[in-house]
């Protein structure tokens, strides 16, 4: 009885579904027709609008939109670039900071090393100082004890007694202000002229120049007729010496004009110049190269000794030693006086004769009476 009921209801359901299916198909067809009509109507309207727009030109609103879109795109790109740049900058800053940190660390390490070395040196110095103080204290106490007859324990200092220089510097003390640098030695004034503070110094290597108007060089000769002198002031020369230490590299040269020698008799002068061949050997020179002092008195500014050098007469040069006395006069001029015996034959000079009877001795006395004044401090190469 149940089975026929189930079959009946199933048949009814099948029919119902068939009806629903037909209705659905009909609905779809009707909807499609309606949609087609609507779309057709809209397409017509749209084509008309586009033609008008084409006739009116570009729509400013659309252009604005397009521009806004472009701007928005650019801004977006800019944002991306900015973000990328910021990221790169951040990275670079981090790298630089890292390098700086590394360098600072290296410097700090180096400073720490130096500090350690200084501490070590200070400790060593302190220890040495303490040791020295202890030694002196011990010696002092021993001496005191021996004097007093009683023993005493020497005071002992340890490194701990002395604050390390680095770790515990002494409290700051008030330092007296540094005195201003001393002004340069004031120059002397004479009639408003500013003079060097020490122009003439006996104990100083200085350069001197001869004063011809106050100087003379000559000779004293003996002959069978009578004795005579030849003299001239035609002298030139300079010398460099420390008068207090004249043995230390004296240097100088004196030049005498041979034709300027005068004996007081014109005929004799002619004969003398002929004998000395002054046309050929125009000068006589003395090159000063050494000095052997026998007496030096800096307080009186005098000295004596033997000046050695090369004497050139008549074109012949020989080593000679000239005893001299040196002094300084009131005008601060150096006076040099000396004499020397020479043989004319040593210089290939034939002693002049007259009629075979009047004959000049082969040996004569050369003398100098020179005055020189300070020219300046010795140069480096003098």
């Amino acid at each position, binding site marked *: 009885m149940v089975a026929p009921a189930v079959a009946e209801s199933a048949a009814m359901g099948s029919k119902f579904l068939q009806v629903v299916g037909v209705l659905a198909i009909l609905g779809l067809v009707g909807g499609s027709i309606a949609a087609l009509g609507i779309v057709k109507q809209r397409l017509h309207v749209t084509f008309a609008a586009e033609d008008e727009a084409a006739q009116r030109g570009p729509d400013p609103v659309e252009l604005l939109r397009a521009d806004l879109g472009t701007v928005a795109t650019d801004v977006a790109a800019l944002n991306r670039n900015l973000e990328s740049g910021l990221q790169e900058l951040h990275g670079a800053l981090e790298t630089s900071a890292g390098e700086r940190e590394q360098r600072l660390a290296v410097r700090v390490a180096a400073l720490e090393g130096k500090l350690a070395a200084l501490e070590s040196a200070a400790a060593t110095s302190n220890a040495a100082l303490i040791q020295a103080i202890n030694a002196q204290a011990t010696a002092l106490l021993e001496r005191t004890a021996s004097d007093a007859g009683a023993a005493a324990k020497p005071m002992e200092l340890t490194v701990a007694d002395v604050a390390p220089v680095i770790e515990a510097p002494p409290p700051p003390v008030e330092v007296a202000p540094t005195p201003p640098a001393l002004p340069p030695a004031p120059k002397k004034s004479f*009639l408003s*002229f500013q003079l060097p503070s020490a122009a003439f110094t006996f104990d100083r290597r200085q350069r001197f120049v001869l004063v011809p108007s106050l*100087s003379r060089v000559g000779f004293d000769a003996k002959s069978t*007729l*009578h004795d005579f002198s030849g003299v001239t002031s035609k002298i030139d020369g300079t010398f460099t010496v420390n008068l207090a230490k004249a043995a230390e590299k004296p240097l100088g040269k004196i030049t005498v004009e041979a034709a300027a020698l005068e004996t007081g008799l014109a005929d004799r002068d002619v004969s003398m110049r002929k004998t000395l061949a002054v046309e050929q050997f125009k000068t006589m020179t003395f090159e000063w190269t050494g000095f052997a002092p026998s007496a030096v008195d800096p307080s009186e500014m005098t000295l004596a000794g033997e000046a050695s050098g090369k004497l050139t007469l008549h074109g012949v040069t020989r080593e000679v030693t000239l005893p001299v006395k040196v002094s300084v006069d*009131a005008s601060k001029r150096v006076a040099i006086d000396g004499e020397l015996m020479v043989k004319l034959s040593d210089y290939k000079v034939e002693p002049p004769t007259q009629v075979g009877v009047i004959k000049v001795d082969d040996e004569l006395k050369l003398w100098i009476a020179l005055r020189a004044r*300070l020219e*300046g401090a010795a140069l480096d190469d003098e």
Partner: protein
Amino acid sequence: MNSPRALALALIFALPACIVPSVLDEKQRSIEVAAEELAWLPARSEDLRGLFESVSIEGEAAAALWKIYYHFAPDGTFTAAALIVGGAQPQFQTLSGTWNISEQGLDLGTGEPVRALFAADRLRFELAGGVAILRRVAAH
């Protein structure tokens, strides 16, 4: 005996005794400039006018002063030059300023009068550093 020959021999042997030796005395070898004996009087204003050059400088200043010149003008101004030695090279130094002479001496603008004496166109300055004697070489 041949008289001319005897006369000649006599002359030869007698002549040395007649000719005075001309050997220069050792003390006269050096050339000394004798100080002039002048009657120095305090210089007056009119004594200073003109150009003066040094003829003698003595004392400490002499070591450094080779030569000095002063020109004193009537309007009370002066100009001067000196050759200074003692340094690496000699150098000229020049001065100019005003001068005034009074009982205290010659004031060259320093406020420290210098003792100034005058005699026969010679001007003598006396200072602690030395003595300088100048002679007048031009009156204007």
